[in-house]
């Protein structure tokens, strides 16, 4: 009977970009593999770049009888809702989604909570009083992260000057570097990003400059520049995916807004241990206190989207 069950429960993943981006999409793919390994179910992945292809991919998975399909990005919300009406037996999970429908369930990552903490460190450590953010495309979660980063920095230094650049691409590494070089010229010495692989160029620029630091995003990116990465705002996508899949496989899945913040442990601010000593103890304490109060304020998994 177990065999029967595994052959019935299949999980599909649709990513909007390449899974080799060492960030958003690769995290989802890692999550899918974890589902396969931990739950012993069949999985499948497809890359779909445009809204039309994305809807087609969701629809095809559903038509083939997949039980659980992840649409990895807010952009899947509309198409998931449309497709779900025709295929009620499939559960659609929309990462960074918005609304619950009968069999559509959004998965929200409050990465901005971690970006806020990163911003606090940046605000406290900046010598120039200017901090910089490099974004890929101005998507809602990215804009939220930028705003939280700025708010965190302001908390430590109300006079902080925030700068930002959007690249309009997640691929162009060289643009990520040029943007950072221009921001350095504008006086920034603390960097944060949400530009996936394009940010690799930002890391390079920070590495080359004498006194700048950077905070990673999505993954723990300390290894990219061990001397210059103070910390990273991390989403533990595999853990979140696995949580959802386990629930769905058990059969008790009720569509709901699944929201992960610092409290869940899926979102973390991971400081770079190698540089921890350079962060003044009072600043570290302030960050810890802030994290605790955010966790304390978090009422639970069904929390609505943060105010916009």
């Amino acid at each position, binding site marked *: 009977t177990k065999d029967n069950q595994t052959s019935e429960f299949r999980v599909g993943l649709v990513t909007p970009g390449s899974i080799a981006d060492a960030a958003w999409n690769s995290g989802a793919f890692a999550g899918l593999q974890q589902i396969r390994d931990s739950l012993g179910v069949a999985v499948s992945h497809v890359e779909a770049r445009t809204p039309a292809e994305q809807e087609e991919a969701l629809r095809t998975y559903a038509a083939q009888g997949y039980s659980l399909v992840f649409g990895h990005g807010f952009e899947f919300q509309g198409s998931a809702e449309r497709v779900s009406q025709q295929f009620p037996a499939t559960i659609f999970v929309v990462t960074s989604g918005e609304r619950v429908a009968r069999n559509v369930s959004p998965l929200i990552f409050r990465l901005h909570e971690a970006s806020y903490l990163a911003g606090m460190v940046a605000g406290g450590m900046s010598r120039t009083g200017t901090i910089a953010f490099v974004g890929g495309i101005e998507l809602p979660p990215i804009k939220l992260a930028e705003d939280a980063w700025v708010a965190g920095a302001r908390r430590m230094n109300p006079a902080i000057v925030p700068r930002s650049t959007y690249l309009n691409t997640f691929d162009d590494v060289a643009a990520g570097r040029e943007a950072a070089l221009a921001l350095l010229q*504008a006086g920034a010495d603390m960097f944060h990003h949400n530009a996936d692989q394009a940010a690799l160029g930002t890391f390079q620029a920070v590495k080359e400059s004498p006194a700048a630091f950077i905070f990673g995003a999505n993954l723990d990116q300390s290894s990219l520049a061990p001397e210059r990465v103070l910390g990273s705002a991390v989403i533990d996508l595999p853990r979140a995916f696995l949580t959802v899949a386990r629930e769905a496989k058990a059969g008790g899945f009720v569509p709901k807004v699944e929201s992960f913040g610092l409290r869940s442990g899926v979102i973390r601010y991971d400081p770079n241990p190698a540089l921890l000593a350079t962060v003044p103890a009072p600043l570290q304490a302030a960050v810890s206190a802030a994290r605790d109060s955010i966790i304390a304020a978090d009422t639970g998994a069904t929390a609505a989207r943060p105010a916009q």
Partner: protein
Amino acid sequence: MDLLETFLTAAVRVATPLLLAALGETIAERAGVINLGIEGAMLAGALGAALGATAGGPLLGVAAATAAGLCISLLFAVVAVRFRANQIITGTAVTLAAVGLTGAIYRDAYGAEGVGLSLPTLGILPVPGLSRIPVLGEALFAQSALTYAAYLLVACCWWLLYRTSWGLGLRAAGEAAEHARASGVAVARVRMIAVLIGGALAGLAGASLVLAQVGTFAEKMTAGRGFIAIAIVVLGGWHPVRVALAALFFGAAMALQFLFQSFLLGVPYQLFLMLPYLLTLLVLAGAWGRTRAPGDLGRS
């Protein structure tokens, strides 16, 4: 460094890969071949640079990049020149193949989910004395070796096209292949070699992205620079020196875009993104617009 110097330095730096690729495409197009595959050759060059630099440092990276660009354009040359397939379709397909192949090889070499490679880079090589010239010194003479190579290649291309018999035959093949043939030019062979030179230079352009700029590789990291290089060839009127100026112009417009975003707040960033292209259109509509393509460009 003041803002103007920063801007000019960034302009030359951003222009370098564009210039290298555009020079190569200039040679190919002067021979009558429009190679949309240079986007792919550039990407192959970038991966070649990463693999080479991993294995044996930046210089091996440069060599491997050139070889990789050459290989990809050999595919193009065989299909589009030897078998005279349509150049536009072939170029599109070759770029697609290069995107796929570089992705597959990269994943094979470094893991399916990608890594932030950190490669040894070429570094800045200031020319003693010259780099001290006020305003322009830093921009022109405190760059990586590949930028200086690009200057040199501009001169080489010019000499090749306008001062050698082979270049004369090449231009004839691009203007009127049948007539060139009647004058004793081995059209197919000349075009083949021109495409290969173009591919090698596109590979070098990929190397300059990886080894002189970002120190890493990422899938699709050329992000359309090959197509921009083709626009630069047209803007530069198919003449190496003017192509160099056009590349610098484009580099400047792109550098300006980043400076604007960093310094001007509250303006939608998309307006800055349009800037390089709108500026180019304006320049084209002015005196620079009346260029003439080689007569047999694109005819296979």
